[in-house]
């Protein structure tokens, strides 16, 4: 890890430190609304990192990460509601449940040669099945939803119950940890094997890489990490509906950050989240204040903005930004 830090040029270290400082100090400066936007930025940066491991590194497109998000959220909240098991313990169960689901999806796909677009369809199908299943699961309130008690004045970090500041710092720690993990994995033998499998599975196999196993590990980590995001979601919003948490729009919104920011890069998911979340939020504000608030109008504008960014920077904003800030890896 120290070797990684040493590889960053001096001004890059200053910029990283500055960015960290801004995020740590932000709650002292900004109001509640802005802070809640920043929570979303960090939340999407975190989930973007999780998804990017599977797509950006291992080259497997999942359009059904809502499955792991939802399983994580439902597992931890249900454990708390029914058995009084707190989220800090429940999160491990949530990781295990989502990772197991990921392994089933991965096994079914990769064992039987379901690749590319067909694999992506399989991931959507599993998220949809699960949504329908939870719609009828009485234990978790079925389609009527699951609710955690809300007490705005609570400062109960052990039960993840409190104001926006608590969740802000939890999200910050998650985003930092995910970024460090991604950076460490990228430089590990496993990371190199992921890239090999992404670039050419047949050639990867010819140098002794077990393609199936390497993809399964990517799925395991990605699904497990996404479940942690789901636990965060569940305790932050304190209400869960299968039609929302398992919806394909959840899957799509979490992959936009890394795509806009730069697939397969360490800072892409962060940059993507920093760009997209405020755009979405300010569009909402703009629509309301300008009287254009017809249903769907926001999505149209959001879509146009996405198209503009993608057509200008097809390989993502971060690679371009890194080049201009002279932060791309020095060629020794």
């Amino acid at each position, binding site marked *: 890890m120290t070797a990684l830090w040493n590889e960053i040029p001096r001004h890059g270290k200053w910029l990283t430190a500055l960015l960290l400082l801004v995020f740590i100090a932000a709650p002292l400066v900004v109001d509640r609304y802005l802070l809640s936007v920043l929570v979303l930025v960090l939340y999407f940066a975190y989930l973007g990192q999780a998804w990017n491991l599977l797509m950006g590194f291992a080259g497997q497109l999942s359009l059904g990460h809502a499955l792991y998000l939802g399983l994580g959220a439902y597992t931890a909240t249900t454990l708390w509601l029914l058995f009084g098991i707190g989220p800090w313990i429940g999160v491990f169960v949530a990781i295990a449940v989502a990772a197991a689901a990921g392994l089933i999806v991965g096994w079914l796909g990769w064992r039987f040669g379901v690749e590319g677009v067909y694999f992506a369809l399989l991931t959507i199908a599993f998220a949809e099945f699960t949504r329908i299943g939870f719609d009828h699961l009485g234990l978790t309130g079925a389609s009527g939803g699951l609710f955690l008690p809300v007490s705005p004045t609570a400062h109960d970090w052990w039960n993840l119950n409190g104001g926006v500041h608590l969740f802000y710092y939890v999200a910050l720690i998650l985003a930092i940890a995910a970024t460090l993990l991604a950076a460490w994995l990228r*430089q*590990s*033998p496993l990371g*190199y*094997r992921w*890239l*090999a499998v992404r*670039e*050419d599975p*047949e*050639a*990867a*196999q*010819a*140098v*002794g*890489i*077990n*393609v199936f196993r390497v993809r399964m590990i990517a799925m395991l980590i990605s699904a497990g990490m996404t479940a942690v995001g789901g636990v965060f979601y569940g305790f932050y919003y304190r209400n869960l509906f299968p039609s929302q948490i398992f919806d394909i729009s959840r899957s799509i919104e979490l992959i936009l950050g890394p795509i806009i920011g730069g697939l397969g890069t360490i800072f892409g998911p962060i940059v993507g989240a920093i760009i997209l979340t405020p755009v979405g939020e300010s569009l909402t504000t703009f629509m309301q204040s300008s009287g254009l608030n017809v249903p769907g109008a926001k999505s149209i504008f959001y879509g146009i903005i996405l198209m503009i960014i993608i057509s200008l920077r097809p390989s993502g904003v971060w690679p371009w930004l890194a080049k201009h800030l002279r932060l791309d890896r020095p*060629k*020794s």
Partner: protein
Amino acid sequence: MSGLLSVNGVNKRFRGLAAVSDVSFEVQPGEIFAVIGPNGAGKTTLFNMIAGAMVADSGTIHFDGRPIDGLRADEIAQRGIGRTFQIVKPFPALSVEENVVIGALLHTATIDEARMVARDILQQLDLSAKRNQIAASLTLPDRKRLEVARALATKPKLLLLDEVMAGLRPTETDRIVAILKDLNRTGLTILLIEHVMRAVTALASRILVLQHGAVIAEGTPETVLRERAVIESYLGVEEL
């Protein structure tokens, strides 16, 4: 069955077509063994069965005294067989060095160690100066050498080369021939499929000739290349 690689009565059919029929041969440790034959003779199919990319319909393949037929390609690589692809398959978005590092990771525990192995091999193959270039940006001769470098990084006992000279200029061919001779001198056994006779005669200690999936001749270059069947089926056409 004292050979490093012994292929016994291997068959492969694609629907009605016998791509490889009843092929047997042995590759001795330390030799350079060439498989030649006209296009469609079944050379690449044979090669793919040895490397685990295809499964033989019948027959056995032994490597280092153990059966390897039916193993996956990655398991065969782990046993000590390195291969190149006729249509080169670099990891395009990665640097030349990263390509070779990935090969070296088969037998090293850390990236630093793998990088040291990779740098040695890149040196051997005259690719050191280009190690930070993205593989997709290499010229064809460089890509062919990168294929060899990546396969070598897995520290194979047997190196399978599928037409590494195809599409190269004579000077480039001679360069690879010299590199392969050096590698062979250090004890590496090589099985090559080749169309470029200039390279085959310069390298091979023994030659196997395939036609329509069957062996029509086997022996030293001097004897094989004088055989009438070989000249008629192959050399007569190719040498034009």
